[in-house]
């Protein structure tokens, strides 16, 4: 996490992959019992912890911080369903370290969220995620500057998170 904040993208990628498998285990049990799509919640948590990584305190353990974000997002997701769920941080933390099996790793909420972005944001997001292009490759193929790609990507991610939230408030 320390390296990630210094802008080390590779370290950050490894961290997110690790966190994702832990999050899946933690979220799956809870999400299934209340009829939520676990992968939707996992992606929402990833997006939130990415955009809010400035709230992590350097030098402290990452797990409790991630658990707190996951708990918040689970409660949000649950509210969207019209019911309320109280989840203690401890129980999420416990499952963060426990074991479980496999699942479907596609999500539908994000797919719907993409539809709410501007065309440019959607193109850039698709290019760097689905196609796996680097910022420079995306810039070349989309006929933009590299800086513009990065700015558009960042705005796109922020709008995605905002769309999740909006969903929740209009319910």
């Amino acid at each position, binding site marked *: 996490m320390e390296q990630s904040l210094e802008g080390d993208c590779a370290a950050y990628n490894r961290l997110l992959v690790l966190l994702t498998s832990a999050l899946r285990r933690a979220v799956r049990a809870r999400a299934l019992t209340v009829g939520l799509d676990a992968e939707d919640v996992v992606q929402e948590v*990833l997006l939130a912890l990415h955009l*809010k990584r*400035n709230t992590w305190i350097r030098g402290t353990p990452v797990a409790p911080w991630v658990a707190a974000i996951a708990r918040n997002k689970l409660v949000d997701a649950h509210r969207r369903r019209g019911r309320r769920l109280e989840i203690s941080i401890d129980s999420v933390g416990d499952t963060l370290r426990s074991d479980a099996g496999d699942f479907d790793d596609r999500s539908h909420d994000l797919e719907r969220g993409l539809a709410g972005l501007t065309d440019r944001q959607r193109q850039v997001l698709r290019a760097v*995620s689905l196609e796996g292009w680097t910022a420079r490759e995306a810039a070349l193929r989309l006929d933009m500057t590299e800086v513009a790609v*990065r700015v558009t990507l*960042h705005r796109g991610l922020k709008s995605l998170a905002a769309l999740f939230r909006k969903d929740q408030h209009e319910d």
Partner: protein
Amino acid sequence: MKTEALIRALALDAGRPVVSIGRLVATALLIGAAASLLLFMLLLQPRPDIAAAFYSAGFCLKVAASACLALTAGTLLGVVARPMSRGRSLGVLTLAPSLLAVGVAVELLALPGDTWHARLIGHNAPHCLALIPLLSAAPAVCLFVALRRAAPARPGLAGVIVGLVAGGIGAFLYALTCPDDSPLFVAAWYSFAIIIVTGACFIAGRRWLRW
């Protein structure tokens, strides 16, 4: 969309510099307080007998209690800005009200009952109710802008803490111009003004600090 694809997008976005929330809040506080101070100097000025006033216990108490509120609530900003909820640390907030309560008790013991009413009503209550929120506005707005980039576990509570910090700053500045030094006046009208600010910030927090 697959999660792995999302992670690729997030990792690419991680190249951007990250400003820690502590720094954002500190900057916001500085700018907000400076703006209020400027407003105070342009609009109000310290009262003419300010030098002499520092020898009056009542004046010192209201200045100290306001500063105390802003400082104690200020130490909680970093806590409420983060997703981990820690309710226990809220205890420090009792410090400023306790200080004021002691002042009120001393005042009630020291002065005869028939002067209480006049001291409670003071000279400038409507002034106080209008100016404290006005002087609180800039810090509150700046803090909200900073906390929009935070992840408060409880947005309403974060709003309340913003309100107390901003209200404390507003009260501190207003105290320098306000002619009423009685702790009775401060307990009634300053508190009322700060509660108005805090209530507004609570609603704003619930509305704008969700993430």
